[in-house]
């Protein structure tokens, strides 16, 4: 069974068709990279997966269960678990400035524990704090636990944002150009962290312009242009033997 299936996702802004029927399928633990020139709809796709935009039509299934189903012109059907199935790391980090690093990690899980009514015992504050500490280790920021976002470099802030997203244990974690807002010398530390997250459990979708990184971290790569998936395959297939003319043109420009 697929971890994630996206079927015929369409999204318009006014008369501008930004996603023209996108299909995706990912197994658990797979890493998908999405490349493509700007304006191709990559961000919009991730935003639809995280329900920051409502796709006009199409379906999203997580673990075989439909979490979002929209038919043109009708109100979409969104399941209660839909939001927490996905996590998103933004290009601009979007950390909460008034909370310390630890506070940023713990805020949403604490609120969830307070709200939670169904299945299983509530997570205690101590358990949440212990998980936060562990994730800070994962992203290499144990010593910054009590720092505030304004005291961190961009690379450190993005690593905090990654840990914060992981605190909610999403089924699928999405990254929208996680290093594009960073100084070149800081991209390495963030890419290294993302690479270290790859294991049999974590399913990830990464929109990136870092071609070398995409080649090494991905199980499959998608080239998106004008709202459609122009080419799709293993990193070797897409980078070394691209079939589409558009892909070839794009790669020759960037590499």
């Amino acid at each position, binding site marked *: 069974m697929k971890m994630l299936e996206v079927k015929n996702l369409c999204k318009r802004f006014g008369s501008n068709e930004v996603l023209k029927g996108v299909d995706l399928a990912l197994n658990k633990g797979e890493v998908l990279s999405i490349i493509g020139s700007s304006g191709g709809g990559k961000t919009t796709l991730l935003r639809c997966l995280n329900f*920051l935009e409502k796709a006009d039509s199409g379906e999203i299934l997580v673990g075989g269960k439909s979490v979002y189903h929209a038919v043109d012109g009708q109100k979409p059907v969104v399941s209660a678990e839909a939001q927490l199935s996905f996590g998103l790391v*933004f290009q601009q980090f979007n950390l909460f*400035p008034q909370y310390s690093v630890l506070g940023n990690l713990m*805020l*949403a899980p604490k609120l969830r524990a307070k709200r939670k009514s169904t299945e299983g015992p509530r997570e205690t504050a101590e358990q949440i704090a212990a998980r936060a500490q562990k994730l800070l280790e994962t992203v290499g920021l144990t010593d910054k636990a009590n720092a505030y976002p*304004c005291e961190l470099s961009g690379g450190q802030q993005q690593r905090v944002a990654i840990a914060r997203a992981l605190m*909610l244990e999403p089924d699928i974690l999405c990254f929208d150009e996680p290093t594009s807002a960073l100084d070149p010398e800081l991209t390495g530390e963030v890419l290294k962290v993302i690479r270290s997250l790859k294991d049999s459990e974590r399913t990830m979708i990464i929109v990136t312009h870092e071609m070398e990184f995409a080649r090494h971290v991905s199980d499959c790569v998608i080239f998106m242009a004008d709202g459609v998936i122009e080419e799709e395959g293993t990193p070797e297939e897409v980078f070394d033997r691209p079939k589409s003319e558009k892909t070839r043109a794009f790669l020759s420009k960037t590499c």
Partner: protein
Amino acid sequence: MNFWSITLDLLVGFGETLKIFGVTLALALPLGLIIAFGSMAKFKPLSALTRGIVWVVRGTPLMLQLIVVYYGPGIVFGTPIFSAYSATYITFTVNYACYFSEIYRGGIQSITKGQYEAGQVLGMTKSETFFKVILLQVVKRIIPPMSNEIITLVKDTSLARIITYYELIYFAQRYIKNGGILWPLFYTAVYYLVFTALLTVFFRWLEKKLDYFKA
């Protein structure tokens, strides 16, 4: 009539001034937030109505509003509805709530969309995001304009005098009427100055308290 007994007497008058100040703040701070949400409502008739009210209240003199609320009902219905106390509290509260609402609105709208989106993708509800993430950032940003407005309120309280609310200025004027003593009226300035100085110190302190983050 010695200096100290007049000082004490004026202090009683200043107590009445503080009542207007306290009641207005306590009611207008939350009411302003409600009005701010009203003026930002997606439901057009509601936002248009709210903005209309804010326009009228901010576009006419507070003194005129006091007179209308206090004397208006008597003229229309033949019998007054509000005492000087309630007319003052109602008018000041609504007037200041409208000013506060515009400051709140500016503050709320200055927070980037990304903060709301981060809250949403972390599974937080809209109200959790607002109260746990947005609000303190708004507070930090609006302290300077709010402190301005609140210091203005201290002095605006003297307008209540014209609808026979017995506050500090009234207390001082009695000395002119009853014995031709003028200086207590000038002396009232000290009360306002001391109080606004305290407020200034308080807002400085609050600004410092929120200095630990950038928003």
